[in-house]
């Protein structure tokens, strides 16, 4: 395969059969359409390219900025496409809740604008919602924007009507599947694919998946939010069902760990929703059937999403010399010293004075002569053993004497004979009128 441009690599993604041992369906062959293998990483590459392509020449002439309301994959694809053509890209959103995606977009040169939160004190006289303002700004005279408008642009749907849908049928030897399962975001892929499949075989049944209302699954809208999408037509779907964030992660794990498909939570939701829905049919019918679901994007961008909801999945073996292993009694009886005594001790025995606060706080004000080792770094240091000589007395300080007590207990347990915690911390030091410096 040789291409002149990366955009030629968009589409023609594989259709991969899921091992029946994993999904457990006896009479249904379940296939995953691996949209995660598009060059920019998701199903949105198709729509982004199809929407932007006809306008690029003109946009380049005018030096327009590409603008889209997107919290993730469409923004990613458009940022790349804009960059390839020397154009800027701006994403406006209030849904960008996955930090890695935000960082990746910034890395790609995107400008991100976040819509404000709801007003705490409702203003009943307010007439404009942020989105209306956004559209007004776009159409203001003299503005040079290429607004791809993914929620309303028919070229979003068309990308799937002419691409994704035909590819599925081709890979199933000219047959449409009995079932098509898609998560509903912009409704572009579900609508476009469904339309093509029904043209091939009017009996295709379409399952649309939305997020449970109180939940957040990246790339999927809730049952209310889909009503705001211009491309959404309830008649596209024979059935609408909702999936929870937990379901999405469960499905994602099955794809990741058992199928070798590095899908993100949206693909996980599609898999989970597909199997949940098909299980009943599988039990009722002995007829051989085929179902296809879309794996929208990759897992790598969602690690913080997983960490927040299922920290157990990212568990690591316990660390050595961790302050977490200390008992309350050990911490309570850790050697400590009050401000007055500490001042005397510093004058006579010159202990090494370690300030465990952040470098910013340390830079602002600290005890003269202290060194700054921020607590996270200190925790790393002591994993490997005592970071200073046993003959060197040590005074540890933190804001209120809590962290320092932990580390004093830990170092004592590790065999240091003369380590103490500054009781009450830097705050007690300040409140006692002892000097703090910034140098």
């Amino acid at each position, binding site marked *: 395969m040789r291409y002149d441009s990366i955009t030629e690599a968009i589409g023609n993604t594989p259709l991969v059969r899921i091992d029946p041992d994993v999904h457990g369906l006896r009479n249904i062959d379940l296939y995953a359409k691996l949209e995660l293998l598009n060059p920019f990483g998701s199903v949105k590459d198709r729509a982004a390219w199809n929407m932007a392509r006809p306008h690029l020449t003109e946009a380049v002439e005018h030096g327009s900025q590409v603008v889209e309301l997107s919290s993730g994959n469409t923004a990613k694809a458009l940022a790349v496409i804009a960059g390839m053509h020397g154009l800027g890209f701006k994403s406006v959103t209030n849904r960008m809740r996955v930090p890695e995606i935000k960082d990746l977009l910034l890395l790609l040169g995107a400008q991100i604008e*976040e819509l404000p*939160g*709801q007003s705490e004190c*409702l203003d009943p006289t307010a007439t404009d*919602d*942020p*989105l209306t303002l956004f559209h007004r700004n776009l159409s203001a005279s003299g503005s040079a924007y290429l607004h791809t408008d993914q929620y309303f642009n028919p070229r979003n749907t068309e990308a799937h009507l002419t691409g994704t849908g035909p590819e599925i049928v081709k890979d199933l030897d000219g047959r449409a599947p009995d079932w098509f399962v898609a998560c509903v975001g912009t409704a572009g892929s579900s609508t476009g694919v469904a339309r093509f499949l029904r043209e091939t075989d009017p009996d295709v049944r379409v399952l649309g998946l939305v997020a449970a209302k*109180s939940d957040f699954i990246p790339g999927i809208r809730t049952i209310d939010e889909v009503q705001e999408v211009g491309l959404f037509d309830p008649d596209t779907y024979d059935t609408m069902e909702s999936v929870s964030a937990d379901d999405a992660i469960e499905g994602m794990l099955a794809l990741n760990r058992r199928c070798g498909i590095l899908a993100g939570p949206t693909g996980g939701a599609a898999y989970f929703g597909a199997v949940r829905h098909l299980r009943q049919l599988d039990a009722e019918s002995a007829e051989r059937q085929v179902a296809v679901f879309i794996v929208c994007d990759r897992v790598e961008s969602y690690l913080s999403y997983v960490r927040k909801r299922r920290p157990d999945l990212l568990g690591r073996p316990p660390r050595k010399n961790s302050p977490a292993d200390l008992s309350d009694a050990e911490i309570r009886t850790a050697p400590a010293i009050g401000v007055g005594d500490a001042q005397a001790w510093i004058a006579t025995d010159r202990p090494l004075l370690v300030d465990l606060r952040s470098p*910013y706080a340390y830079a602002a*004000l600290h005890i003269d002569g202290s060194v700054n080792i921020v607590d996270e770094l200190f925790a790393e240091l002591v994993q490997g053993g005592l970071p200073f000589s046993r003959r060197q007395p040590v005074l540890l300080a933190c804001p209120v004497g809590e962290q320092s007590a932990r580390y004093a207990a830990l170092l004592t347990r590790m065999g240091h004979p003369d380590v103490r915690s500054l009781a009450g911390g830097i705050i007690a030091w300040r409140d006692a009128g002892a000097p703090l410096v910034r140098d």
Partner: protein
Amino acid sequence: MGGEPLYLEPRLGPRLRSLLESAELLHMLTDALGSPLNLVVPDQIAENLERFRSVYREHHLSGQIFYAHKANRSSALLRRLAATDAGVDVASLGELQHALGAGFTPDRITATGPKNPEFLWLAARTGVTVSVDSASELDQLAALVRAHKLSPVRVLLRLSGFETSGVKVLSRPSRFGTPVGELNLLLKAVERHAGAVDLAGVAYHLDTTSVAEKATALEGCLEALEVCRSRGLRPRAVDIGGGFGVNYLAHGEQWERYTTELTAAVLGRRPSLARGGHGYGLRAESGTVRGSLGLYPAHRPVAGARYLDELLSQPAASLGGRPLAALLLEHLHDLYTEPGRALLDQCGITVAKVLEVRSPDTGAELLVRLALKADDVALEEHGVLMDPVVIPGNGTGPRTKTGGEPVGVHLFGSLCLETDMITRRTVFLPRRPAPGDLMAFANTAGYAMDFHATRAQLQPVAHKAAVWQDGDTWRWCLDDQYWPITPPGEPH
């Protein structure tokens, strides 16, 4: 009525639940003091304060919790707080006088908001901390201090217009505060007025439910304090205002179902949920919902003290990613907060008598007229949708407990105006109310109780009474008669 009734049951803590079960007391009080009637629960505000304090303790933070007085003008609530260690944030001359009169010493008061010269003078005269909106206000304050030979006044500089690097947050512009970009000009004014003002810290207050926006502002304040310190000033406090929210509803599912049905109603897929097809900010445009829901997020799992905790736990990207609470602590800053609504959560109810229940010929919803004006219980004004609790006239406790057929009703008020609707939406009740019943609106102490009340058309404004529990019984006195030493058991 169109399908199942859509209830929005209020969340009731133990005190309000017990109060609403005291039907006899509520009837006696409305008979004696008239309808509408506001009841406040001073002990609750002390408990709410303690919840905020515990968040401070968890993060080892010092600093003051200032009750935002404007949320309710009750003397009982204010005096009960005066007996705790709380502060109060006053936004007018009257509020300042009220706070001083309730027992707050000046070191526990901050003056904020738009200020007239009298307010500014009394603040400076008594030595309360002044949250300064602009350089010109600072000039005005300093001039007063000099002209009247007053002691230097502690000031907080209220900042606005915080920006993040990387991601731009399109926060609503505020008419309060000085843009953080003009901090240097403001600090020059502080230095110029060195003998007249004493910089205590910086402040912000953002009208948003977004934690991210507030975190950005708090981070901006930490940086602003660094600028102050680098100029040799020694401010200590960051005042992050309030807006921590209240969770009004008992059941999240009811709220989710209601808002889904509201969307369906706007799209014409079910009968309207409000008079005249009102969509609360949503509208249909060729089959698609446009606009944004102009409602208070009435079911909020994270509200009040928990919201503060979440805010303090946000990482500060420009300061090494440590949580904001850790940074406040490490920098030895005091945290000031100004909760109003959140401190008043579960602190009061508004009760009104049902005067008339009318069945329209069309078979539409019942029209229920209350001895109350829409302004007396401004829940809808603030976009808070919450069902009233019906207390039957026979004194057998809330009617939700007894059987009967659900009904949809429209609640209207006692003003001779078409617009005097207590609720624009259809309210579903477990059974038909009757004249002589009481309707109690729960959790109205924050902004909904008397914030908008008027004497229009010479209709009575609600009397206000304080209630407290003495063992198993509720006791009461007029709001103005309440002092923290009033309840038995307190030292006289």
